[in-house]
């Protein structure tokens, strides 16, 4: 199992602050027929930060995420990973490159146990002929490593890795999905509305998990409609409006009300690309 890696800082494309973004999108364009999904969007995620993406419905949040996770191919623009240009034709390629996405639907299998879900489609076989000839799975090994991955995120409520996922609560299922992403996402973890379906207590547990990922140095992209959650965990906030990046703010520089105002167009921010109207 791959562990969290320090971001490679010896990249080629240095940016303003001298830091190289782990994941960077430049001038990303995506259209669907005559509908514009992304209209030249830039995005940077730096090592060890939580970048929140907020925006109204139809602002292009999902399109942005799907382009970064390989579900959509860009029409124009360039995505770079550690400063090196990359192209993803399908989600598996982004995953292989170290970008893990937790979808809103979680994409976990209720009938299988927690360890099986963590290792789904990446099963590990036993050493020796049992694994190579009989293709036997290393169930115990996977269970042990799944257990340490879950413990590493500070999830105390899940103890037995042999428990089937359907017996877990909504928050615990979310924890399993995040644990899977964190265990295999060596570069970036993308979380799509991880707290939307959860109660207050479970939502807070997920926020703690996000903070723990950041503390390990793993950058997180968080898509959320929940402004208090965003203002609690985000280091920077990317505001998407009408297929463009309206602004990048921080919880310190702007209030929640400012954020919503920018989202809806009631307020514009100087120095951000939204003010430089390109015709």
């Amino acid at each position: 199992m791959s562990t969290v890696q320090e971001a490679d800082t010896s990249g080629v494309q240095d940016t303003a602050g001298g830091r190289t973004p782990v994941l960077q999108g430049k001038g990303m364009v995506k259209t669907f027929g005559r509908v514009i999904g992304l209209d030249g969007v830039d995005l940077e995620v730096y090592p060890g930060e939580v970048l929140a993406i907020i925006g109204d419905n139809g602002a292009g949040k999902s399109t942005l995420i799907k382009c970064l996770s390989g579900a959509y191919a860009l029409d124009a623009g360039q995505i770079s990973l550690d400063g090196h240009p990359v192209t993803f034709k399908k989600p598996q390629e982004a995953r292989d490159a170290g970008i893990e996405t937790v979808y809103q639907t979680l994409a976990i299998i209720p009938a299988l146990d927690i360890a099986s879900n963590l290792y789904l489609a990446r099963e590990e076989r036993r050493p020796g002929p049992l694994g190579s000839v009989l293709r036997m799975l290393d169930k115990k090994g996977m269970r042990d490593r799944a257990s340490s991955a879950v413990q590493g995120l500070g999830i105390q409520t899940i103890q037995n890795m042999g428990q089937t996922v359907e017996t877990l609560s909504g928050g615990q299922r979310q924890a399993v999905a995040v644990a899977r992403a964190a265990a295999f996402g060596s570069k970036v973890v993308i979380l799509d509305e991880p707290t939307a379906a959860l109660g207050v207590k479970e939502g807070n547990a997920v926020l703690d998990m996000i903070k723990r990922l950041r503390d390990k140095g793993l950058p997180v992209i968080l898509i959320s409609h929940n402004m208090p959650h965003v203002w609690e965990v985000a280091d920077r906030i990317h505001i998407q409006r009408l297929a463009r990046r309206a602004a990048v703010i921080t919880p310190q520089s702007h209030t929640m009300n400012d954020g919503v105002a920018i989202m809806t167009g009631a307020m514009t921010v100087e120095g951000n690309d939204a003010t430089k109207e390109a015709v």
Partner: protein
Amino acid sequence: MTTVVSGGRKQSAAEAELSRRSQSPAQRLQHLLHANPAISPALILVVTVIVFSIINPRFFTANAQSTLVQQSAIVMALAIGQTLIILTAGIDLSVGAITILAMMVMATVASKNGVPGPLALLIGVALGTAAGYLNGLLVTRLNLPPFIVTLGTLSIFTGLALLYSGGASVNADQMPPVLNWAGNSFKIGGFTITTGVIIVLVMYAVVGFALSQTAWGRHIYAVGDDAESARLSGIASKRVLLSVYTVAGLIFGIAAWCQIGRASVASPNGIVDANLNSITAVVIGGTSLFGGRGGVLGTLLGALIVQAFQTGLSLAGVDPNYRLIAVGILVIVAVSVDQWIRKVKS
């Protein structure tokens, strides 16, 4: 939401009610059956055997039990492939037709065209595999429901078998010995066991191993339980489906060989009801028609239960038509129990 009560706090009235309720025996049974789907068919089989042995002691003789196992061997074999397909939330109505086609071709090329026995066997088994592959292609490439695909291929394969054989049976003495090999029998204690039964049991062991110990098996459960989540997790769902239909075809091809040994004849009119019997065995064995739950051990028990009902009621002197009704009731009860088990709560 969790209903787990944290240690230090005093239980509220509602929490006390919840913890009291979670200890009800019915719920504990539900959890047990949910975790081990083979338990209920095992219990049913034991009760069935005990009841019929009390009604007619002849039921419990080695002779009757040997015959029972031999009679259920073909349905047992077909039900292995059917289990794999139903685990993916599919269904195969063409199992009997594929078996008849493979059987008629292997018997006819050997008896009429003088193809050597082992090669004729290989041709028949390969044809069964190809027929399963065709089902898989239609399901995965044309995105048609398995019910419709196999309803169509049921007619196509049956028609092909009748055309090729001219509707005529091939007797055992016209065939090379290798095609009859599955009919050979030997004795262990008082029990008579045929090589066909051994072949079927070996197939159960191999498929059971693959389902529980390999990544392929896990992917079958994942695709059957939630195909979209499986795809998003990185499983090539269509490739898994195609492989399942192909492996099922291979199993039906081998079942054709066992059927020749059992009946001592290759007849295009035999085992026409095998498709429904195989589904019955799978369902009674606790594999869910909605996919993702169950296994071959339950199916093995399910096939034995159906045959035990048939043999037991026959030995008890019950009219054959009542036997049909009894098996029908058994199927409905089995599906009801499955629905109840699936409603399990944490």
